[in-house]
């Protein structure tokens, strides 16, 4: 969505706004159909639509590996995982719909390249080791954000996130199993894993976004609990959980500047190139065009199924 679409200044009834803020502050959640400030609706749609897009686009890189999975057990598990991701998109588009956008509208925006999806899904999945990285680290990163948002103020989103996190946990466990078998494998397998990790590291650091500027906007998002933790808090949470996994298996964290600062209980890392994140976020990543084209091709290819369903129901 464009910056230009942002409502100028919310024209909310001050009395309703005060009541709304008081409810949120006391820990209450808002249900579908209840009164909410226009700016709240705008931000909630932006967040949930982006999440929904990311789930359905996120199914594509791993999908490439279903036919090439090394064993039948891996193929079954990967298929289940990809199916979960598409299912999450279904749940999330429905939640976004309760905020006043139609599913068709959102889907059209996605396939026409007018909407955004997470930076990590704009990159190639070159080897089987990339599947391990995606399952452990990409899903692990997503889990930090989504886990925090389970306490967000929009109840339908919070409910769906519980279910999503439950399934994401399976993805991470599955990924760790793939990761372990490669990390304990032959020197070639270990090299393949290290190479995938090297390629994914920057997108993973990018994943949480730039450290938030202290702004009235961020303050308000936190106060309204559309945002629950800052970008940097989530990135640190991710590093604390996942850096030890890399080290445990004797692999190398692809950032020579990374170190743990005991006094501050946080990791220091090399500042990544934030311009790359902005570029990729605007659908100019290495695989953006190809994946969007694939999404559109499937959408068109399946049009007859949607039509047949409607005709059948009408008959």
């Amino acid at each position, binding site marked *: 969505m464009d910056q230009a679409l942002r409502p100028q200044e919310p024209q909310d009834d001050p009395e309703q706004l005060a009541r709304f803020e008081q409810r949120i502050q006391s820990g209450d959640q808002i*249900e579908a*159909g*209840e009164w909410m400030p226009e700016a709240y609706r705008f931000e909630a749609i932006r967040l949930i639509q982006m999440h929904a897009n990311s789930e359905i686009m996120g199914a594509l890189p791993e999908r490439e590996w279903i036919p090439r999975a090394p064993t039948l057990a891996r193929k079954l598990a990967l298929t*289940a995982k990809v*199916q*979960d991701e598409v*299912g999450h998109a*279904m*749940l999330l588009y*429905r939640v976004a*719909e*309760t905020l006043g956008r*139609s*599913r068709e509208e959102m889907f059209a925006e996605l396939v026409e390249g007018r909407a955004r999806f997470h930076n990590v899904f704009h990159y190639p999945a070159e080897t089987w080791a990339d599947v391990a990285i995606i399952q452990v680290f990409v899903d692990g990163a997503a889990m930090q954000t989504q886990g925090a948002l389970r306490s967000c103020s929009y109840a339908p989103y919070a409910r*769906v996130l519980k*279910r999503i996190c439950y399934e994401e946990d399976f993805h991470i466990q599955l990924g760790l199993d793939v990761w372990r078998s490669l990390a304990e494998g032959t020197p070639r397998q270990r090299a393949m894993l290290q190479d995938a990790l090297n390629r994914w590291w920057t997108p993973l650091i990018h994943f949480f976004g730039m450290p938030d500027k202290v702004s009235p906007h961020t303050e308000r998002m936190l106060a309204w609990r559309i945002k629950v933790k800052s970008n940097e808090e989530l990135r640190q949470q991710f590093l604390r959980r996942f850096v030890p996994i890399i080290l445990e298996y004797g692999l190398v964290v692809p950032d020579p500047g990374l170190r743990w600062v005991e006094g501050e209980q946080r990791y220091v890392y090399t500042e990544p190139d934030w311009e790359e994140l902005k570029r990729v976020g605007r659908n100019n990543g290495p695989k953006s065009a190809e994946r969007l084209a694939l999404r559109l091709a499937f959408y068109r290819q399946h049009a007859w199924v949607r039509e047949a*369903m*409607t005709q*059948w*129901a*009408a008959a």
Partner: protein
Amino acid sequence: MGGGVTVGAEVWERRLDTPRDVWAVFLQARTRDPHVHVGDVHAPDAEMALVLAKENYARRDPCVTLWVVRAAEIHTTTQDAAEMFEPAIDKSYRFGGSYRRQQQVYRSAWRLSHRDEDQ
């Protein structure tokens, strides 16, 4: 929210404001459990709604039956009317726990009357 039933100035009942192709899914995990709303699906008819509900909500966890119902047919009390569920008077008389004190009295009375037998 429009179209709700109004009592005084307050809207306390309305129909869910939902597109017609949205079906609410209720899942029963085990035979003795109640059906619980687990989410929605989009479908042109009930048969397809059940198929999609199975794919979306019964992939791994236990399920014995599914219900689907057009979400737009569901009537709800509004959040604004939540106060109407708040007890207007003390309803402790409806709870077994309220009678513990009485049981204690009986028990101590019984102990008193049997004191001699204990010794």
